[in-house]
C-alpha cells in the first residue's frame, strides 16, 4: 500500500540554535484513513498539522501528498480551525461560498457553485441557519460551518485542529457522530488533532501518540480495530474499544506524563 500522505523526517526549530520543537516525525497515511494525533499540550501536534497544511514550513524533512510535495497552503489540505475562524462579516452561507468561489471559480458555473454550497451546508445540517452571521449561532454550529467550508473545497486531506475542543460534552458527541457519518459517506482522508482519548478511539483508524516537547516525536501508533459504522453506545463495553483506550491512556498518563503536571 503506497502512502497517500507521507510525512518524512519532519523537524522544526523556531529560532536558529534553539531546541527543536519537533524531530524526526515519520508518518504514512493511506487514502481514506482517519488518523488522530494525540498528545499533551505543548507537544507540537498543532505545529505538525500546520506543517501538513503548509501554514508553517518544516526546518527539516518534508510532506508529500498524492505524489506532490507540500510547500504552501492550499485547498487540497483544507483546515478546520480550533476557533472556527469564520469571517464575522459574512453569513454562514457566504463563508462557505467564499471558499467555493475561490476553489471552483473556474471549474464550476455560478449555479453549480451555489448548489455545491447548499449541498455542503445540508451535509452538516446547517441549511436552516445558513443566512445567519457567525455571531448569531452557537459554538457547535460555527464549527459545523467550519467543517462545511473545509469539505466544500473537496480536499485530499481534511485537517482538523482540535475541532471540538471548545465545545461542551453533548455538542461534542453530536458533532463527532456527524463527522463519523460524513467520513463514512465521503471516505475522505482525515488528520485530526485532539487531546481527548475517547474521541481519538471513537473516530480514528489509527492513533498517533506524541511524546512531550521539546524535541517531540511520534512515540507510538495504535491501530483501532473496530468495524464501521461505529456506535458510541455499543462501544462502551467493546473489548477492542477498551483495549485501545487503555493503550492510549497508559501512554499519556503513565509513560509520558505531562511535564507540567509531573513537576
Amino acid at each position, binding site marked *: 500500500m503506497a502512502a497517500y500522505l507521507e510525512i518524512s523526517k519532519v523537524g522544526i526549530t523556531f529560532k536558529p540554535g534553539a531546541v527543536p520543537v519537533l524531530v524526526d516525525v515519520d508518518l504514512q497515511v493511506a487514502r481514506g484513513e482517519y488518523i488522530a494525533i494525540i498528545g499533551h499540550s505543548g507537544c507540537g501536534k498543532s505545529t505538525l498539522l500546520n506543517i501538513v497544511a503548509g501554514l508553517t514550513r518544516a526546518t527539516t524533512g518534508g510532506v508529500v501528498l498524492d505524489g506532490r510535495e507540500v510547500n504552501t497552503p492550499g485547498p487540497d489540505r483544507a483546515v478546520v480551525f480550533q476557533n472556527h*475562524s469564520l*469571517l464575522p462579516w459574512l453569513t454562514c452561507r457566504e463563508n462557505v461560498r467564499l471558499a467555493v468561489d475561490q476553489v471552483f471559480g473556474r471549474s464550476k458555473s455560478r449555479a453549480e457553485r451555489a448548489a455545491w454550497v447548499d449541498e455542503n451546508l445540508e451535509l452538516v445540517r446547517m441549511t436552516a441557519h445558513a443566512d445567519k452571521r457567525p455571531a448569531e449561532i452557537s459554538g457547535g454550529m460555527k464549527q459545523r460551518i467550519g467543517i462545511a467550508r473545509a469539505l466544500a473545497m473537496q480536499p485530499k486531506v481534511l485537517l482538523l485542529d482540535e475541532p471540538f475542543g471548545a465545545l461542551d460534552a453533548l455538542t461534542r458527541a453530536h458533532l463527532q457522530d456527524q463527522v463519523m457519518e460524513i467520513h463514512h459517506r465521503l471516505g475522505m482522508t482525515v488528520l485530526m488533532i485532539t487531546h481527548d482519548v475517547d474521541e481519538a478511539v471513537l473516530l480514528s483508524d489509527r492513533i498517533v501518540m506524541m511524546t512531550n516537547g521539546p524535541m517531540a516525536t511520534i512515540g507510538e501508533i495504535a491501530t483501532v480495530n473496530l468495524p464501521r459504522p461505529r456506535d458510541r453506545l455499543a462501544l462502551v463495553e467493546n473489548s477492542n474499544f477498551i483495549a485501545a483506550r487503555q493503550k492510549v491512556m497508559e501512554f499519556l498518563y503513565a509513560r509520558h506524563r505531562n511535564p507540567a503536571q509531573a513537576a
Partner: protein
Amino acid sequence: MSTTIDSVKVQNAPNPKASGPGPAARIGSALWNALRNAAPLLVMLVLIFAIWQIAAGGAKSSLPPPTTIWAQSHDLILHPFYDHGGLDKGLGLHLFASLKRVFLGFTLAAIAGVALGMLVGTSMIAMRGLDPIFQVLRTVPPLAWLPLSLAAFREAQPSAIFVIFITAIWPVIINTAVGVRNVPQDYRNVARVIQLRGLGYFTKIVLPSAAPYIFTGLRIGIGLSWLAIVAAEMLIGGVGIGFFIWDAWNSSNISDIVVALIYVGVVGFFLDRLVAMAGNFITKGTSA
C-alpha cells in the same frame, strides 16, 4: 443620550405586559416604557436648570439665568431659519453653513485618510517614510494651520475647509493603518488555505476586517472636525455657528451664546451618532 438607544431596545423587546391586553393597553405600556427611560434625563435637566436659575439669578450675576435667556433669545430657539439678509440669520442657517464646511472637509479627509492609511498599513516602506511625519503633524493644533491655509488659499471658505480636512485626517489615517495591519492571523490563515491573494485578499479579507477600525477613526475625525470648525469660524467670519458665537460675544449677547452652545452640542452629538450608525450599517454590526 444612551436613553434614546435604550428606549428603542426596550420597545423592540417582547414586553410581558403587552402580550395579553388590547391595543390601547399596549400603547399605554409603550408610553410608560418610554417615560420610564426618559424620566431620569428629564429629572436631571430640570435639576440643572433649577440650580442654574438659582446660581445665576442674583442681581450681580455675570451670566444670565435660563429665564433671562428665554426672554432675550427665544426668537433664536423658535425660529432657527429666519433670514433678515446679511449675517442676520437664524441659528439653523448658521449651523447649516458650518455643516456644509464640515461635510466638505470631512469627506475629503475620509477619502484621503483611508487611502493613506491603507498605504501605510500595507507597505512597510510607506510606513517607515510617512508614519513619523504623520505622528509629528497630527500634534499640530487645528487652528495653527489656519494662518498658513489663509496665506495659501487667500480666501476664507477653502481655508476653513482645509482646517477641517487637516484636523480630521490623522485619526482616519492612523486607525485605518492599524486596522489594515492587524488582520487577525485566523483570517489570514483562511485566506492562505483558500489561496486568496492580491486584490481579492485585500477587498474580501483586509477591508472588511479593518472596517471597524476605519469607522472608529472616522468617528474621532468627525468629532474633531466639529470642534475645529467653531474655532476656525470665529477667526474667519462669514456665516457659520462659530462666527455667530463670536459676534454675539462682541455685542454682549450672552444669552445668544448659551443657546448657540446648546445647538452646537446637539448637532455634534448627532454627527457622531450618524457616523456610528453608518459604521454599524456597513460593517453589519461587527463595529462597536
